[in-house]
C-alpha cells in the first residue's frame, strides 16, 4: 500500500490507481461490525433493497409484509457506533400500502423525490417520497416479479416490468400509460435490467431458462439469446434451443461499466457473459447454491480491481472475484436465507437483507488499533468518549484558550 502512496505522491501513477487499490483493500476487509446496525422495522422477510444513486445516503427496502421503509445511511454523530435510522415508512396503516409482498423497489435515478415499487398484488406504484402517496398506479394481470428504470436514460423514461406472464411490459413514467410489449419469452419473466451503458438496451431473464437482450426501439424481437454452450451445439442435451442455464434463470445483473452480464440460475451455476456479443466467457464459479423461486438480487462491486460479485447463497453471502471465478470469502451472519444484497460504491459497504427480517451492514474493518486506544483512553478520562478515529480527533485547538 505504501508503494501506491509513494507512486501517487511522485506522480508516477494515475490518481485512479490509488483509489482502486484502496477500494480493493477495503472490500477484502468486509466484516460484520458491531458498531454499524440498521433499524429493524420489517416484521417479515426483506425482499429487496436499493441505495439511491445520487448521494448514496438513503436506502429503500421492501418486505414480504408489503411495507416499504426509507433509511438514512449517513453517520453524522461523529461516533463510530451508529444505527441507520428509518426516516419514513409506508406501513400497514397507510391507505395506499401494497396488499401483498413487495418484490422490487427502486429510487428514481435522478433524485430521491420519487421511488417505484412493485408487488405481488399485481400493481406497480410510483410514490412521492414527501407525502408517501402514490402518484401513479400501474395494474397488471399477473404477479409482478421485477421492474427496473434505466439509470442513464435521457431520451426515454420507460420502466421495464417482468410479470408472471411471458410478455415484458414497458410503461412510460412521463405519460402514465403503457408503451409497448416485448414478446419472446415462454414462461414468467423473473428479472429485468437496463444496461448502464446504453439507454435502449434491456436484458430479461425468465423461468424458461432463457436470457434475452433487447433493443426497445426495435419492433421485431430480441437482439440476442444468451447461449451457455457458446454455439457448440454438441454440448446441449437438445439441439433446438439456446438456453442460458439448465433451469430457471432468477438473477440478472450488469457490471458497473455495462460490458458484462452476470446471470444465476437454479442449476446452481453463475455465468458471466460479454454483453455486446452475448458470448459466454466460460468463467467457472463452481456451485453457487440457488433455490429461489423468485428473483435473486445480487451486486457487483464498482471501482475496485479486480471486481467482486456478492451473491446470496443460502444463509450467507458469497464473494467471488469476477473474472477468475475464485471464491474470496463467505460472509456469514444471517439466520435465514438471504434474498438481496446491495453494494455501496462510495464507502465499499455491503447491505444484505433476508428472511430473518434483518438488514446487515458489512463494513470494511481495517484498523485493529481500536482495542489499544480504548485501554489507553480509559486511564485518562473516565470513558467520557468512545474511541474516535485518530484522523478525526481535534489536534488544532489548544486547551489554554
Amino acid at each position, binding site marked *: *500500500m505504501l508503494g501506491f502512496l509513494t507512486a501517487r505522491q511522485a506522480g508516477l501513477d494515475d490518481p485512479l490507481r490509488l483509489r482502486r487499490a484502496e477500494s480493493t*483493500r477495503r472490500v477484502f476487509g468486509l466484516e460484520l461490525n458491531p458498531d454499524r446496525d440498521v433499524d429493524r422495522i420489517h416484521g417479515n422477510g426483506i425482499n429487496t433493497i436499493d441505495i439511491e444513486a445520487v448521494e448514496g445516503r438513503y436506502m429503500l427496502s421492501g418486505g414480504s409484509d408489503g411495507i416499504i421503509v426509507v433509511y438514512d445511511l449517513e453517520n453524522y454523530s461523529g461516533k463510530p457506533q451508529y444505527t441507520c435510522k428509518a426516516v419514513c415508512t409506508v406501513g400497514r396503516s397507510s391507505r395506499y400500502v401494497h396488499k401483498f409482498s413487495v418484490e422490487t423497489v427502486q429510487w428514481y435515478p435522478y433524485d430521491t423525490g420519487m421511488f417505484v415499487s412493485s408487488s405481488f398484488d399485481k400493481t406497480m406504484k410510483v410514490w412521492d417520497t414527501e407525502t408517501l402517496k402514490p402518484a401513479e398506479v400501474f395494474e397488471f394481470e399477473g404477479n409482478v416479479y421485477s421492474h427496473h428504470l434505466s439509470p442513464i436514460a435521457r431520451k426515454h423514461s420507460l420502466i421495464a416490468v417482468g410479470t408472471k406472464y411471458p410478455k415484458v411490459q414497458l410503461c412510460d413514467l412521463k405519460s402514465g400509460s403503457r408503451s409497448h410489449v416485448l414478446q419472446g419469452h415462454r414462461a414468467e419473466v423473473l428479472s429485468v435490467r437496463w444496461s448502464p451503458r446504453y439507454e435502449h438496451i434491456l436484458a430479461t431473464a425468465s423461468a424458461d431458462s432463457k436470457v434475452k437482450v433487447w433493443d426497445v426501439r426495435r419492433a421485431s424481437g430480441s437482439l440476442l439469446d444468451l447461449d451457455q454452450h457458446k454455439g457448440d451445439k454438441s454440448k446441449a442435451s437438445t439441439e433446438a434451443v439456446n438456453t442460458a442455464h439448465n433451469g430457471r434463470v432468477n438473477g440478472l445483473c450488469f457490471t458497473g461499466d455495462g460490458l458484462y452480464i452476470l446471470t444465476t440460475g437454479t442449476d446452481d451455476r453463475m455465468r458471466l457473459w460479454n454483453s455486446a456479443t452475448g458470448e459466454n466467457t*466460460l468463467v467457472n464459479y463452481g456451485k453457487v447454491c440457488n433455490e429461489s423461486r423468485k428473483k435473486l438480487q445480487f451486486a457487483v462491486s464498482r471501482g475496485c480491481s479486480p471486481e467482486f460479485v456478492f451473491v446470496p447463497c443460502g444463509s450467507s453471502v458469497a464473494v467471488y472475484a469476477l473474472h477468475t471465478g475464485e471464491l474470496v470469502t463467505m460472509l456469514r451472519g444471517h439466520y435465514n436465507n438471504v434474498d438481496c444484497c446491495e453494494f455501496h460504491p462510495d464507502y465499499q459497504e455491503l447491505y444484505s437483507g433476508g428472511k430473518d427480517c434483518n438488514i446487515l451492514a458489512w463494513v470494511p474493518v481495517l484498523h485493529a488499533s481500536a482495542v489499544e486506544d480504548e485501554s489507553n483512553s480509559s486511564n485518562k478520562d473516565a470513558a467520557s468518549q468512545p474511541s474516535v478515529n485518530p484522523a478525526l480527533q481535534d489536534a488544532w485547538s489548544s486547551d489554554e484558550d
Partner: protein
Amino acid sequence: MNRKRALISDTFKVKKSRNGPEKFGVVCNGNGPVDVKSSLEYLMTLFPRKLFNDALPTIVLKHQLYSLHNDKTLVDKEVNKLREQAELLMFQLGFDTEAFGLTFISDYKAKVLAGQEGKVTRATVERFLEKLLTSSCTDLSFSKEKMLREFLFTDSEITQLVKSGVLTVRDAGSWWLSIPNSGKFTKYFIQGRKAVLGMVKKSKYSEVLQAELEERRTIAQVKFNMKYHIHDIVGADLVESIPTTSGALLRFVES
C-alpha cells in the same frame, strides 16, 4: 511479460492467507502455472484397468481436476487447449449434464481398435477414428448432416458405428461420441460414488478425515480406488474439503 508496475490484483492476493504461505493439510500446487497434463496422468493411474479386463481406455472425469487445482477457469482453459491439440477427447457420460469424461486419444484409439478385432465393423470404425483425429476432436456429438456430408458415411455405416459402441443415440438424427463397453464403468462409478457419499454422510457430524476415509475397508459396492472417488466427490462439490491440522477434512454438503 515484464511489467514495470505491479497489477493491483497482484498486490492483494485474492486469497488472504492469514496463516502464512503454507496451507496445512492440503496438498496444493502453489502459485506456479497450472499443469493439467501431469494431474491428468496422475488421475489416470488411479483408474482400475484390471476391472474391465483392459478393454476400456482410462477415463478421468473433468471435475476431478477441480479437486487438484484451485482455479476452475484455468483448468477448463487448459483442458480445451489439450482438446484442440488433438491429445484429449471429452465425452458426455450421460448420467449428469455436467459430468464429462476425458481420455487420451492414443489410448482411446488403441482400445477401440483392439476391441474391434475380427469384427465386420472394423473398417468403418477405423475410418471414423481417422476422421475424428484430423477434423473435429473437439465435438461431443454429431448430427446427421455432419456425418453424411463432412464425413461421407452412409446410413448403414452409421448403424454399424452405433452397433460397435462408438456412437450412442442422442435424439433423432444426432449422436453422442462414446466409449464402447462403458456401460459397466458408468454403473460401477455411480454405485461407488453413492457408497462413498453414504460413508461420509453416516459419519458423526457428516464429516470424515480424508486420510481416514482412504484407510477404510472398501465395501463390496466400491470397486474403484477410494482416491478416485474422493477426487470425484470433492471436485463435484458434493463434499467440502476443509484444511485442518490433521489433514484434509471432508464434510458432506447438504443440498
